[in-house]
């Protein structure tokens, strides 16, 4: 089943066409890889699907619903979370606070009451609510083995942990679909291996994942399907095996394998 889909998505910046008429599909339950040379438009595609940027043409569908041009917070609330290529943590906040903020829209909600009563309730029972999100956030940190770091300021974490924290924060929103923009950047091979396991674990939670990555070991190992962008256009799509041997992709992106 296709959970997310773009139709002829195009993003133009005064002359520079960063993404051009891309049809991109994400199958539910799988890990989809998005690769391509630097400047191919991968991040731009992410931004246009997550509401941080608006396409100049084309449409985005999530569960068959047209979400083109929806504001980012709405898209997040529908169940799409993401991380950023240039890490965007709440730097001056502690690790646990970062994750707790991910719980934002899960709080103050009760189907049986109106909005106002809900907010009021959330205000009156605030300790209780805090306790709840604290526990949830804590369990996400444990998921990443970062429980011991929870009171550190986010900005003081080493790079690799910052990346993981970003993922933890995104997961705290309990998404159905998770976008990861270069999650392994700045990690050494061992850490990358660890990350791969984590990503699989996330998939096993029933979360669909789309990731951009330049680390081919990671991509080829864990992706079920891969889409390749080049100069803003879709160059290829297929299984890792197919992509690895696609001459166009080799020429534009992979280069000849050394070994």
């Amino acid at each position: 089943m296709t959970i997310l889909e773009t139709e002829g998505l195009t993003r133009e910046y005064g002359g520079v066409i960063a993404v051009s008429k891309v049809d991109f599909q994400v199958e539910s339950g799988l890990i989809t890889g998005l690769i391509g040379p630097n400047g191919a438009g991968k991040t731009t595609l992410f931004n246009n699907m997550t509401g941080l940027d608006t396409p100049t043409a084309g449409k985005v569908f999530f569960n068959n619903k047209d979400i083109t041009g929806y504001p980012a917070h709405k898209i997040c609330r529908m169940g799409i979370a993401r991380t950023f290529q240039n890490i965007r943590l709440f730097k001056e906040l502690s690790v646990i606070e970062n994750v707790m903020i991910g719980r934002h829209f899960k709080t103050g909600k009760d189907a049986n009451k109106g909005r106002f009563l809900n907010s009021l309730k959330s205000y009156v029972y605030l300790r209780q609510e805090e306790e709840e999100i604290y526990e949830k956030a804590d369990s996400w940190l444990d998921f990443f083995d970062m429980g011991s770091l929870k009171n550190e300021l986010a900005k003081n974490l080493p790079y690799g942990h910052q990346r993981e924290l970003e993922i933890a924060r995104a997961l705290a929103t309990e998404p159905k679909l998770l976008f990861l923009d270069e999650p392994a950047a700045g990690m050494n091979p061992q850490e990358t291996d660890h990350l791969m396991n984590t990503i699989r674990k996330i998939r096993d939670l029933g979360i669909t994942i789309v990731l951009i990555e330049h680390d081919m070991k990671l991509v080829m190992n864990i992706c079920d399907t891969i889409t390749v962008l080049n100069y803003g256009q879709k160059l290829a799509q297929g299984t890792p095996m197919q992509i690895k041997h696609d001459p166009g992709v080799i020429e534009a992106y992979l280069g000849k394998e050394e070994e």
Partner: protein
Amino acid sequence: MGIAEFFQHLMNGLTLGGIYALIALGYTMVYGILKFINFAHGDILMVGAYIGLFVFDGLRGSAPLGTWTFVSFFIAMLVSMASCALLGMAIERIAYKPLRKATRLAPLLSAIGVSFILSNSAAWMFGTQSRKLNYPFDNTPIDIHGVVITPHQILILVVSLVMMIALKMFVDRSRMGKAMRATSLDQDTAMLMGINVNQVISLTFAIGSALAATGGMLIALDYKVYPTMGTMIGLKAFVAAVLGGIGNISGAMFGGILLGLLETFGVAVFGIPTGLKDTIAFGVLIIILLVKPEGLFGKVEKEKV
């Protein structure tokens, strides 16, 4: 409204705007590099005006208007610029430098403190009365078909224009100017390029303060010299700088002129009571900012993620 009246208002607006522009240039200069509102700018301007006044009166003695008055005014201006440059550097060293890595608002408070210190020291030393800075030249108005303008007003416009161009050339072309831009964007990385950031910041303050001194003396000719002379005009100039897109030199000039015109035409053309002059000026300012949130000359740069 008659043609003559219209042009008279235009003239008034332009020259008032020229005054705002003159001061806004110095403001924008410092802001552009350090990203903080130098609240004390108006007070440095005041100090500049006092120094200029004393030197000018001392040099001139009782000489009648003529070349000597002009020359002595010029000397007074140089002295005042130099002293203010030093003052500006000293203030930066003492009150702002320790706060470079602190939160954005810390230097603002420090600047407010400096502003209190300067204006009240002046009041204590020189008294609170307004003093007249005499024109060094004949300021008889020139009448062109019923539209009147004084040489002083022309001078202000010319000086601010010249200053704008000179500053722009300096910042865009010179090595030091480039260093300033880099410093304004990222101090740590600027150092990696071999830029002496401390020196750049000092120089910025020196130039900004010298500009303030020039502005102070020129407006003192019209508005007199007194301890709080820089407060209101400094505020307006800051508004002008923001209107133009803060940190942008041509923007400051343009913002100044525009604010002057707004204040003038708001009441002159639309028949709104003059009491509401500021309301119109600020109202339009807010609207302009809403339409162009980065000021008129600022570029809207959407953050890339």
